[in-house]
């Protein structure tokens, strides 16, 4: 069991394994997303209240979920790298950050588009949108800190520490934002109202989530391989390739 763990943590092993897996995950991502898009845009019935505008939920919700998953993964990878000193873990953390930031941005953009017909503005301080905004800054902070260090090892450890502290904070931030939002009294309760989900609407959502997940895995493996190439460029196994 330990040997398996150790094997997985070795860069050359990962590089080869990822090389095999990427086409599969990529293919799965493509198929799932296409079917889910068709299901969401065409097959699912229009919502009673929001008409067709709600369909953006099929992009908004999965991207928000992926963004949160990405941050957690980044923190776990960074923590693993810090505690057990596994270099590959640091490479994964470095690779995840821009992916997570992109999903967060996508969530914000789609949330904004979703809200426009309802609120009349491109932004409103909805609890989820605000949480995503703060999450975006957490990602940007992580990437900026990383970029500020010249030495890769130091950059890994410093940003890793930040990520670990951040991940503990994320639930607190989320709760505080939800609470903050709920204190609004009066007519304008700002909330991205989710339409009542029926079975017809649910399966494209789940499928899209799975598709996003596969896409995430694909891009992550590609980026991690690139990180490994950069970090190990002086080592023997790479020269042998």
């Amino acid at each position: 069991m330990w040997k398996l763990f150790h094997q997985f943590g070795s860069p050359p092993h990962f590089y080869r394994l990822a090389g095999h897996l990427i086409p599969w995950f990529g293919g799965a991502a493509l198929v799932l997303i296409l079917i889910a898009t068709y299901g969401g845009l065409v097959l699912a019935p229009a919502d009673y209240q929001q008409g067709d505008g709600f369909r953006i939920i099929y992009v908004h919700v999965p991207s928000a979920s992926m963004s949160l998953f990405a941050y957690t993964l980044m923190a776990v990878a960074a923590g693993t790298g810090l505690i057990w000193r596994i270099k590959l873990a640091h490479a994964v953390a470095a690779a995840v950050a821009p992916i997570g930031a992109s999903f967060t941005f996508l969530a914000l953009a789609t949330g904004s588009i979703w809200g426009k017909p309802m609120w009349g503005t491109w932004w409103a301080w909805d609890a989820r949108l605000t949480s995503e905004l703060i999450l975006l800054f957490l990602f940007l902070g992580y990437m900026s800190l990383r970029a500020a260090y010249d030495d890769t090892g130091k950059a890994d450890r410093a940003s890793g520490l930040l990520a670990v502290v951040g991940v503990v904070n994320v639930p607190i931030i989320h709760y505080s934002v939800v609470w903050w939002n709920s204190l609004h009294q009066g007519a304008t309760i700002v909330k991205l109202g989710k339409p009542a989900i029926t079975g017809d609407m649910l399966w494209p959502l789940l499928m899209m989530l799975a598709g996003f997940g596969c896409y995430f895995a694909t891009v992550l493996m590609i980026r991690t391989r690139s990180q490994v190439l950069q970090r190990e460029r002086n080592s023997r196994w790479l020269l042998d390739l």
Partner: protein
Amino acid sequence: MSGPLSGFGVVLARDLRLAFRRPGEMANPLLFFILITAIFPLGLSPEPELLRTVAPGVLWGAALLSSLLALDLLFRSDYGDGSLEQLVLSGHSLPVLVLAKTLAHWMVSGLPLVLVAPLLASALYLPPEAWGTLMLGLLLGTPTLSLLGAMGAALTTGLGTGSALLSLLVLPLATPILIFGARGVDLAVQGMDPVGPLYLLAAILFLALSLLPLAIAAAVRISLD
């Protein structure tokens, strides 16, 4: 002088003494606090109704920003003259020593904000019933800000990036404190019980006190590597 808390008193005393040798630096956070608070009436309008509504947010936002301003310098001097290395190698528990440094820093830059807050609150027409909540909230919230900022400072010392990066790192993490603190004052103004947010601030403070010194110590070691 042995024991798990050894070194705490010595470092605290030295840092306080050093702070008093630089009175200009000591006064900056306080002046900044007053300045930011003064800017809002100028930027908005002098109407009491308006100012009263925005007062909790303005006061807490100003406190947050002023704390950050001072935190950039927390480790800079010690990093630059080699005393930080000596602290790391002193044989004492590093989390305890950095806690002492952070406490000294808070006493000089955070505590004055708590004491001056009622004055500024009255300038923004905040009713006296809410002052207690404001002060207690700041008393519970500013130490957590100092701890978060200390970690950010330890990570960015020696980078030469200035306080912009520090703010980017710390502000998102500090939003819960801002939210609970400001909304607590809001509740007090409306005559409701602010105990909920205050308890949450206290809980966050305890969490910060138990975990962040370890993170700050780790950050110091990373920056000295």
